[in-house]
């Protein structure tokens, strides 16, 4: 969270759970970790060389509350946070994490829950499936992955919930049957989707087209901050001008300058980092999933965790 109450942890175990996916066990250096609800994530601070990158990861630990588990997919063409986690973090490495935050809670007033995962999007559903099972709530988990060796946790989930977990594999030509799933569900069914952007958009659209109200359709998507040309940002309230590098988000640059700005997800989803634009001499490249199209067009707001400027200078009310 952005309240500064960060937690120092040590990596106590690293397990390869699928091709390019490692699970990290994090133990607190002192005290106990806060409890968390199913679907929660933490933000991990990664000090990669000269930069501090903060990435959100869903908590995947079930059972033992003495530590947190996160599962990290190595993505080569990104800002380097996941590569650093894979290549430089070892048993014993110390990391700083945020308090857990839940932007993807189960709607417990529902009657039935359909969880749809694509690839690494399985991570929030591990705790959610266990919570739903322990609450005796009807659920199904449909999980699509590219191949067997990329399907992290597919086997353990199938084993834990044999009648409720359904697996699909691109390389076998099987896909989540979204349209069939949307048909003939009892009133009060909720749908949750996490996976690649294209899958999320397609599934949410299919849900609305099947007549589901938007209140029953839920998605978790964390967008990585986009890279682009450097530009400067004038912080009007603190009277400073700072530079945002190619691979840095505005939020990261603001924090590096010692200025506090609110955030929760750092992935363009929660709305917490919404900031007023005072002036701007270029074009704002919005990459979030939060702002309304009208607000976007007006250019009066920017989500500084992911969006940036294509131009020279942006003045913000910070």
């Amino acid at each position: 969270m952005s309240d500064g109450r960060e937690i120092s942890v040590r990596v106590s175990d690293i397990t390869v759970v699928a091709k390019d996916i490692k699970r990290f066990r994090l133990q607190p250096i002192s005290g106990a970790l806060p409890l968390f609800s199913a679907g929660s994530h933490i933000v991990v601070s990664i000090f990669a060389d000269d930069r501090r990158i903060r990435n959100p990861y869903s908590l995947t630990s079930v059972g033992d509350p003495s530590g947190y588990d996160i599962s990290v997919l190595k993505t080569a063409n990104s800002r380097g946070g996941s590569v650093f986690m894979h290549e430089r973090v070892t048993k014993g490495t110390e990391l700083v994490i945020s308090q857990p935050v839940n932007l993807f809670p189960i709607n417990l007033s529902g009657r039935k829950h359909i969880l749809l995962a694509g690839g690494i999007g399985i991570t929030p559903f591990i705790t959610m499936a266990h919570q739903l099972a322990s609450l005796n709530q009807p659920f199904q988990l449909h999980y699509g992955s590219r191949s067997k060796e990329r399907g992290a946790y597919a086997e353990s989930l199938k084993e834990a919930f044999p009648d409720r977990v359904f697996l699909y594999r691109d390389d076998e030509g099987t896909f989540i049957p979204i349209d069939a799933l949307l048909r003939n569900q009892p009133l009060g069914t909720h749908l949750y989707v996490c996976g690649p952007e294209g899958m999320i958009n397609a599934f949410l659209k299919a849900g609305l087209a099947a007549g589901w109200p938007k209140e029953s359709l839920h998605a978790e998507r964390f967008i990585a901050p986009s890279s682009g040309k450097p530009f400067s940002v004038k912080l009007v309230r603190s009277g400073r001008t700072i530079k945002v590098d190619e691979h840095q988000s505005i939020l990261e640059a603001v924090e590096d300058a010692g200025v506090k700005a609110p955030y929760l997800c750092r992935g363009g989803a929660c709305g917490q980092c919404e900031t007023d634009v005072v002036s701007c001499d270029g074009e704002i490249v919005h990459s979030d999933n939060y702002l309304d199209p009208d607000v976007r067009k007006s250019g009066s707001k920017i989500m500084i965790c992911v969006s940036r400027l294509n131009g020279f200078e942006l003045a913000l009310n910070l």
Partner: protein
Amino acid sequence: MLFSGIKSRPLYATLQPDPFARFNLVLVQGEGVNAAVRLLECAGDQFRMRTTILYAGAAQAADRMRSFQIQRMQFLPTIETLLVRVDGFLATAMMGTRLYTAGTEGFMGQVIQHAGNYFIDHKSIITEHCGSLARRIQCIHCRGATENVTTNVVRCSHCGVDLLVRDHYSRRLAAFMAVSADAEAPGTLPAIEKIFR
């Protein structure tokens, strides 16, 4: 009076058709007919063919709804009988069912409360307030409900305490909360005004 700034105070919009819904259940009471007619006017044939209207109120007022080719329309003598009919529909309904309701707050509140028994999120119900602003209240002392309250101070129809009607709304009870009006100084009541017309 509809916008007091108290967060629990429900706000209502206007009835708009959801073109994707597989089945529309439109629940209308009294002057809600005006909203239902506007809804049917702007909706296409496809929508009307997938729509059932249940109406509680004066029979002649409903004539204007008859001219539309809708799948089914039923008239019920009271709100209570209408709600029983709603149960019949929702017990077997599937996702893709859309609820619309128009009428007084007390009526819509009971519809929303009922729909909650069938796991329908109140935010997904399309509402339009029509007619009087009279309130359905609950006495926080004896828990009895009193209908059609139009004044800021009212005597509880169950326990007889003089109550001050608040904007604090309970969705679970489908009622505004009302508290003793003279607890501090027994016998001294604020000026009684007719404010919920």
